[in-house]
């Protein structure tokens, strides 16, 4: 497939998705639009999580910390003056006077997460293996404690509310596409090859002149930017949220998406989001209890998470690199598959 053809294919997909995202509310019911929007946000979070966790081999459990910071920060910035006076009356004057629209507050959230990730990552990216996971988990807990206790800015453990509901499907889809394009460009560039080299063998990577710390840090920081942006999108989708929403349960669901799809592949991560989201939605409906003709199955709360956990264990045992492994689903590959199918 020539460069021209693949460029045309990308443009065609963009056009189709653009038309689809704008016309979706007219085509299908609210339920599906909501699922799609959340899936786009989750895909952003999962793919950005995959940079450090999958491509660089530094398995961070702290991604959700940046998501929480992004959601709260952009929420405070975009809250209307009336809502600020009602919900956060003790805000310092200079913050109370700040008011940004959705897009700039989202960008600010991403940029602040870059700074935070530099500060946190500079020491933590020196660690490897289990130790970096436990240390980044520590970061997540610290963020959670601060969100709960900084009640002047966050209303503490109570629900933070009044965030304008600005995240529509086109917004979410546009940000997701931007994320995918930017990250695919980086991952399959010399920089991305350095990430993978560091993951595969630190000593060999150092021997060919790769500086390990900045290499890991760059993946962590870029991931944090998109986590902050995704947090802002999620916050402006929910409208009201609390620190508990950006903690361990959400972390686990992102991890399961990333790992089931394949954390060494961008399209794998997206595929994981699609699989886990659809499965959870299906199981959640079953969980409420249903009738099969003559037997009434009672509600089984928790059953869908148990199924998800079992699937994750089975993946770990039989296919630890996820559904996609190292492969990407590209237009060229699809075309080749179709071509092969036709020949046979």
């Amino acid at each position: 497939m020539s460069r021209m053809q693949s460029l045309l294919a990308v443009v065609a997909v963009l056009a189709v998705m653009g038309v689809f995202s704008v016309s979706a509310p007219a085509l299908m019911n609210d339920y599906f639009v909501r699922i799609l929007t959340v899936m786009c946000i989750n895909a952003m979070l999962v793919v950005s999580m995959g940079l450090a966790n999958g491509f660089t081999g530094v398995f961070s459990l702290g991604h959700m910390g940046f998501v929480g910071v992004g959601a709260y920060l952009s929420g405070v910035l975009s809250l209307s003056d009336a809502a600020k006076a009602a919900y956060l009356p003790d805000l310092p004057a200079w913050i109370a006077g700040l008011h940004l629209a959705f897009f700039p507050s989202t960008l600010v959230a991403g940029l602040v997460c870059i700074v935070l990730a530099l500060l946190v990552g500079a020491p933590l990216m020196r660690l490897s293996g289990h130790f970096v996971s436990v240390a980044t988990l520590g970061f997540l807990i610290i963020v959670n404690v601060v969100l709960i206790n900084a009640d002047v800015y966050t209303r503490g453990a109570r629900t933070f509310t009044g965030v304008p509901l600005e995240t529509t499907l086109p917004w979410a889809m546009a940000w997701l596409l931007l994320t995918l394009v930017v990250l695919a460009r980086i991952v399959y560039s010399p920089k991305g090859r350095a990430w993978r080299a560091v993951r595969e063998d630190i000593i060999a990577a150092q021997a060919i002149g790769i500086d390990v710390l900045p290499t890991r840090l760059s993946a962590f920081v870029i991931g944090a930017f998109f986590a902050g942006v995704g947090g802002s999108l999620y916050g402006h989708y929910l409208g009201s949220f609390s620190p508990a929403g950006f903690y361990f349960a959400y972390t686990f669901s992102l991890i399961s998406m990333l790992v089931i799809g394949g954390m060494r592949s961008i399209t794998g991560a997206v595929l994981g989001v699609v699989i886990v989201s659809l499965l959870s939605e299906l199981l959640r409906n079953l969980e409420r209890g249903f009738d099969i003709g003559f037997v009434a199955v009672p509600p089984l709360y928790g059953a869908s998470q148990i199924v998800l956990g079992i699937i994750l264990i089975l993946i770990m045992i039989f296919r630890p690199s996820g559904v996609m492994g190292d492969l990407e689903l590209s237009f060229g590959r699809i075309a080749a598959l179709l071509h092969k199918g036709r020949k046979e």
Partner: protein
Amino acid sequence: MSFELYITQQIINAVSLGSLYALVAIGLSMIFGILRMTNFAHGDMMMVGGFSTLVLQNLGLGFGWAVVGGIGVGALAGVIVERTAYRPVRGAPEVTLLLTSLAVTYILENLGILIFTSSAQNFPLPDWMDSAFQLYNGQITFTQINLLTVALTGVALTALGWFVTRTDIGLGMRAAAEDMGAAHLVGLDVNRLIVVAFAIASGFAGLAGVLWAAQSGVVEPYMGFTPLLKAFVAAIIGGFGSIAGALLGGYLLGALEVFIVAFFPSEISPYRDAIVFCLLIAFLLFRPNGLLKRTQEVKL
């Protein structure tokens, strides 16, 4: 109230809390020592122990026997998890082990919700345990449960100390922690050692779960999560993989938490957990092998 008595009271609180952290941290450290695995599901054995004790009590067993049963079910749960989930991924990369244990946590906690609902259940205590001792006109107070916690932890630790220094299986476990391949080569049955390690570690966690439930008065599906995180900190402060280190780390962490609340201004104490985890990160960066463990490369 005199200052000496106040300090004595805080030391009593610290020893009681530290005993619980030590019980959980020791199991975590044992499993890490042998399998190089950060076992996130370890905390849930506390939940299993707590709920089993509750169920056995409701079935009409006396409190003492119910506790013994609860510890037994905790140990059994650990062995089952090892056999079904951890053995198939043994020897896989660290991340695979970590993810498998995360998945097990998720399954166990939701199994708890499925069976017992997500709300906290009352944990009944016999009357004789529900009393407190007051000394110096009530300036020093501690409960039967505090006393029992320290006593049972002491018994458990002494038994463990005897086991790992005087029995063949205990010595084998330490050999496997030192070098799994060499232990295999000299003819040790590594599978059996690992099963025993999981049984002991999970039994300790089950005991900690019962004591935790007795102190808080309730059992709930997520009760093991926070103690597990604290046990990570304790184990790493002491030296991850070392039993003595986990013991030391548990008591140090208990003391630190109690003293932060007792001696620092009240604006600081809500940030107690943040301080504890900052300490964890500091240890990982500057003394990653903890206080009691020989040097080993974990950093760049």
